[in-house]
């Protein structure tokens, strides 16, 4: 009898927890898209962030823009991930924003093209930032296919090259 009570309580708690998790996910800017399949990195082929969503740009095409000072790269990942490594000259702007956001948005507005990336299978961080940038009036905003993994994995500049000089906040 006590076992039955324990099982009933456990099922009730698990169900409540699952509902709580789904509610937090729905309310969070860090949430995942429940309808979008998430593949293992080894199965994803070309890397992460290749699904449908905002306008995409391949790492090769984005690297070609890197020497153009009217192009900016935006890193939508966590600050710790950004600190570990990022596209050369990229600025950090997560979907939740931060204290220097207004200044950054003003400077990004002066760029012809903005390339946003994250490191997620679903690209949802990058998509969220693209949505915000479009809301403030930026026109040509694209998501980097494959995100940071693809960029870094294909040897594109991560710490050198013209992007450093073209970074937002620099002349």
């Amino acid at each position, binding site marked *: 009898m006590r076992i039955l009570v324990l099982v009933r309580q456990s099922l009730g708690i698990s169900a409540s927890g699952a509902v*709580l998790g789904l509610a937090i996910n729905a309310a969070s800017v*860090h949430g995942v898209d429940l*309808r979008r399949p*998430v593949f293992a990195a080894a199965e994803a082929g070309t890397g992460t962030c290749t699904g449908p969503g905002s306008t995409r740009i391949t790492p090769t095409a984005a690297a070609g823009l890197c020497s153009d000072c009217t192009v900016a790269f935006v890193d939508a990942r966590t600050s*710790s991930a950004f600190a570990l490594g990022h596209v050369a000259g990229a600025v950090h702007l997560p979907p939740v924003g931060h204290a220097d956001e207004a200044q950054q948005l003003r400077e990004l507005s002066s760029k012809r093209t903005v390339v946003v990336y994250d490191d997620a299978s679903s690209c949802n961080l990058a998509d969220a930032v693209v949505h915000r940038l479009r809301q403030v009036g930026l026109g040509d905003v694209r998501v980097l296919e494959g995100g940071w993994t693809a960029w870094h994995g294909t040897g594109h500049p991560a710490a050198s090259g013209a992007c450093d000089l073209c970074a937002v906040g620099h002349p």
Partner: protein
Amino acid sequence: MKSSREKAFFLRLGFTGARIGLGLLFAWAAVGKLADSVAFADDMANYRVLPASWVAPMTATIPGIELTVAALLIVGLYTRAAATITAGMLLVFTVAIGQALGRGVNLSCGCFGGAPEPASSWTVLRDVALLFWAVAIAVFSPEPSVVGVDTPISKA
């Protein structure tokens, strides 16, 4: 020479500390996952035990369940049920990490969210220790605990 009453008190004190400690650990794990659900989804996908379409729903629900059992363990409500769920989750995590290591899959365990933590035999040992910890609370935890709200309910 301690009296049996003193022994019982210290036993209850020990289990209360163990319960709250396990709850805090699970709360930490849940918050880490919720702070970066996308990274947790990628970590979970890399285990390659779930169909791709199940990963996102599991990514959303697991931290919620962890947070719920953590809260219950910390306040001492439905302690045995919360510890049973905790033990069940730890068993699943241990098996998932063990099978990945057995197949030679190199992955981040995703245990606490945040910075990548490579899954290793140490991770399996840690989860097994936590599993015993949770089972001990579920099976042997004496009532009433020193601090907790289970007692009034169990007497009702």
